[in-house]
Each structure stands twice: as structure tokens, then as C-alpha cells.
């Protein structure tokens, strides 16, 4: 009988998944509150004291920040539902909880720019205001978090295992402990 279960590997155990290269290491970040905000972004940012949003390869810090993913759309990290409910808000924006929709990976080390060169076509010295870009051919949200050697990547949950396998195949990340 046809058995398709052997055609694909099981998903990585994200809590413990690690890829270690000489100059860069990758791990999954779990448990982040992720919200999608559409509409009047300036009013949303002011209302929640989030300051400026972060663009492509921009630098976000802390556990609470907003990343621009379209002209009228933000991916907001660390904003709990208790502070801002899902749905339409009279100030002119809509909020949707996205926590289960996106996996988050952190790539850390002096080799992150080499990883960017391999995975994207964006100009690292002029990346633009929008953090949604193609990373390994997948639409991801990509920016730095904490410092300029930590790249954070949000990817659609169903595609995360595919991105992980691609990362495993990279010479930059080969030769270390597997995470699968």
C-alpha cells in the first residue's frame, strides 16, 4: 500500500531545534504574541506607545515592537489581547491575533549578512521601509532584533519546516548539531 508518511520528515521539535554553523546559529523562538494590525497605523502606534515601526532589516528591540509589512499593515509583537482586543477599533484600525500563523526563527552571529545574501535579493544598505520580503523564495518578515547580528524571521507556519530544511542545507550552517 502506498505510504506517503515516509516522503516527508517530521517537523522539527521547535523548542529544541538548533542549527550551528561556524559564523551563524539558528533557533526557533516560541511563545511570542503576534498580532496583525491594518488601517490607521499612526493612530495605533500612538495609542499603544510603540514609537516608529521597523522596516526591512530594521532594528527592533525588547519584547514589544511593531514591524511594517505593507503600506497599511503592521505585524506587532508582544501586544497582549488584554491590552488590545481582536476586531475593529473606532480609532480606524483592525487587530487580528496571528500567534499560531507564523513561526519565528532567530539567526545569530557574524555570518548573518552572508545568510541574507544567500536567502534574499534585498540591498542590505538600502532595504526600504517594508519588512515583508522574499527569503529563500518564501514571503517572510525579516528584521534585526536586539543587535545587528541577530536576524529575526517570521515565516508562515506551514512553510517553516521547508525553510528549516533549506537552512540545514546551507554550507554556512552545515557541520554542526542537527535540530530535526
Amino acid at each position, binding site marked *: 500500500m502506498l505510504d506517503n508518511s515516509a516522503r516527508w520528515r517530521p517537523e522539527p521539535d521547535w523548542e529544541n531545534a538548533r542549527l550551528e554553523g561556524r559564523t551563524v546559529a539558528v533557533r526557533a523562538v516560541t511563545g511570542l504574541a503576534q498580532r496583525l494590525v491594518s488601517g490607521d497605523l499612526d493612530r495605533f502606534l500612538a495609542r499603544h506607545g510603540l514609537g516608529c515601526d521597523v522596516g*526591512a532589516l530594521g532594528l527592533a528591540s525588547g519584547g514589544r515592537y511593531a514591524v511594517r*509589512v*505593507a*503600506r497599511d*499593515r503592521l505585524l506587532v509583537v508582544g501586544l497582549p489581547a488584554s491590552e488590545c482586543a481582536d476586531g475593529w477599533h473606532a480609532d480606524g484600525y483592525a487587530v487580528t491575533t496571528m500567534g499560531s500563523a507564523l513561526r519565528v526563527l532567530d539567526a545569530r552571529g557574524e555570518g548573518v549578512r552572508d545568510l541574507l545574501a544567500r536567502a534574499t*535579493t*534585498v*540591498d542590505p544598505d*538600502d532595504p*526600504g*521601509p*517594508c519588512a*515583508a*520580503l*522574499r527569503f529563500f523564495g518564501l*514571503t517572510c518578515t525579516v528584521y534585526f532584533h536586539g543587535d545587528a547580528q541577530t536576524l529575526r524571521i517570521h515565516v508562515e507556519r506551514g512553510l517553516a519546516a521547508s525553510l528549516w530544511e533549506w537552512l540545514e542545507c546551507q554550507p554556512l550552517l552545515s557541520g554542526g548539531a542537527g535540530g530535526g
Partner: protein
Amino acid sequence: MQLFPCPFCGPRSESEFHFGGEAGNRRPEGFRAVTDGEWAAYLHERDNRRGPASEIWMHMTCGEVFRMERDTVHHGAVRSFALIEGGGDDGLAH
């Protein structure tokens, strides 16, 4: 790789974009009053100009739909215009 200018994101690889047709090809309004000839023209008849062209494109990563002036001979992308800022050839998104 060719770079296309998204009016919001700036220059990005052409592979992030999807062609949306010639600008100004508006859907005929009027429902039953629209003749089959008008509808067929809307669906199938294209100017397909040689040289400067005005086209609708979508930037897939951010979702922006915009108008781009491009040359169909040398393929140079000349300028792009945000429809939300009145950049359609008649100021409308269509």
C-alpha cells in the same frame, strides 16, 4: 535579476511582482446592458504597444497594487505610481 520599483517598498527583484494587465482596461459597468462585444473586448483585446507601456502590477510581498510605466522594447522600468495616491492614469484604481 531586474529591479522593479514598488511605490511603497522601493526597488525589489522582479520575481516579487505579478503582472496585472494594461492600465486603463476598465471593466464595463451596467451588468445586463453590457454587450457580449464589450465584454469580450474587456477580456481579450489589448493594445500591446511597442515601446512605452502603462501597466498595473502587484507587489506580492506587501500586496501593493500600482501602475508602472515600462518599456516593452528595452524592458526598462521607468516609474511607478501608487494608486492610493491617485497614480492611476485617471486617478482611479481599476
